[in-house]
């Protein structure tokens, strides 16, 4: 119930922030209406980074505590982070096309870093999908999330150098191009949007976490069911003499003294 209230609250705040950003705040002098994308764009990028930090921390939590609930948090963070990373890139491109004249700008460190971020965590999600055992999946995901989280600052740093060692950036950063007459309104719109998406993020995280827990329970139930039916089928058959069965399977019983499983190859 409380989660539902949070969800409606988040929805209302997002709507309010959108109205404020679209109709109350004046258009930017230099960039016109395209600048309004910035509110959503910055907010998406913030959520993306927040999600991936949560994923990395939850991964560490799993490695230390071995509680699958940490893994559910990590999964929620990675999935939501990937969606918001894609949103941030998409919004950035929509903004860059009218303002910079191109969709893609290799010299912008944030854009390039974010693109790699997307690649890293899509790989993370694919890896999860390819692992069946929940504990093994959690461990693999945790270490990959850890290495990815360590890699991101290095990527960002290297791309800044890439540009910085060549020439001064031709394009100003968006924050310097803000409307000079009404900076407070812009800041207020951005802050409101940040609050709105953070609430929405919290709601999505909780829901995804609950869903992940249910999935785990289903997996466990299926595993238990398989185990039970296997045990039942064993019980139905007549009791087997294990040693006799091994002797029968071995080609030369006299040689298989130490290991009983070797003749199976």
């Amino acid at each position, binding site marked *: 119930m409380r989660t539902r209230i949070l969800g409606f609250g988040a929805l209302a705040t997002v709507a309010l922030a959108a109205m404020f950003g679209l109709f109350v705040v004046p258009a930017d002098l230099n960039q016109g209406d395209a600048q309004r994308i910035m509110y959503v764009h910055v907010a998406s990028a913030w959520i993306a980074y927040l999600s991936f930090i949560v994923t990395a921390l939850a991964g560490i939590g799993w490695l230390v505590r071995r509680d699958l609930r940490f893994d559910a948090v990590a999964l929620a963070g990675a999935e939501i982070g990937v969606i918001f990373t894609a949103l941030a890139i998409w919004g950035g491109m929509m903004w860059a096309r009218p303002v910079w004249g191109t969709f893609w700008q290799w010299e912008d460190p944030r854009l390039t870093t974010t693109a790699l971020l997307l690649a890293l965590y899509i*790989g993370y999600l694919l*890896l999860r999908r*390819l692992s069946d055992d929940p504990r093994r999946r959690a*461990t693999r995901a945790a*270490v990959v999330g850890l290495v990815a989280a360590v890699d991101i600052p290095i990527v960002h*740093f290297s791309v800044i150098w890439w540009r910085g060692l060549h020439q001064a950036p031709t394009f100003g950063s968006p924050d310097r191009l803000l409307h000079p007459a009404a900076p407070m309104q812009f800041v207020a719109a951005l802050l409101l949007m940040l609050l709105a998406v953070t609430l929405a993020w919290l709601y999505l995280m909780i829901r995804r976490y609950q869903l992940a827990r249910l999935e785990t329970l289903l997996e466990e139930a299926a595993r238990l069911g398989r185990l039970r039916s296997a045990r039942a089928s064993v019980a139905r058959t007549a009791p087997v003499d294990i040693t006799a069965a091994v002797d029968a399977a071995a080609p030369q019983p006299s040689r298989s003294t130490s290991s009983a499983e070797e003749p199976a190859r």
Partner: protein
Amino acid sequence: MTALAAEARIAWAIARKDAVSELRGRSAASMTLFFAALVLLLFGFALGPDTRKLAEAAPGLLWLAIVFAGLLAVGRLHLLETDDGALEQLALYPIDRRAIYVGKALAGFVTMLVLGAVMLPVVGIMYGVELARAWPALSVTVVLGALGFSAVGTFYAGLTVRVRAREVMLPLLLLPVTAPLLLAAVKASAAALSGDPFGELGSWLQLLAGFDLVMLLVAGASYGFLLEE
């Protein structure tokens, strides 16, 4: 100190085992040399026949070839361990898992070094690049690049070796992580080849060294978790 020495001995034994099996033609990691040369040849077809254009793109093409071939090499080095469940047995020994990582990474490092050492002259000949002046800086770049790639490559190879569709998953996971390494190595090589007019070579080498150090520590600490599965 003795624990460290024991760890080093184990790592050395593992790397030596990899080298021996390589020399006996079991792991085929050295086959990646031909793959790298082939990639360079294909880049020539894709961008040639203008030699100037090729020479300009040479640092990037060189490192792409090394990265692609290295991808296969680190994958092969771990595949070697799965044939007879060797990795599981290795994990059962009462030794520090970090030593296993260091041993495998050492084997990967040597493979990558050979790869770099052979590919440099190939690039010099095929793309008309003058290497004579730049070789000290280029060697440092290759050593640092090989170390970094082996550090992350060994980790991801160990991760994906027991994953379904590992041929796809290894590059998918490894390549984005190596982006800063590729960037720094290409820039350092380009600076070395052009005589470093902007004095940026040192910064790129430092970045490479930093990447190596961080990844060796993080991957080395994480690798053990993969073995306990």
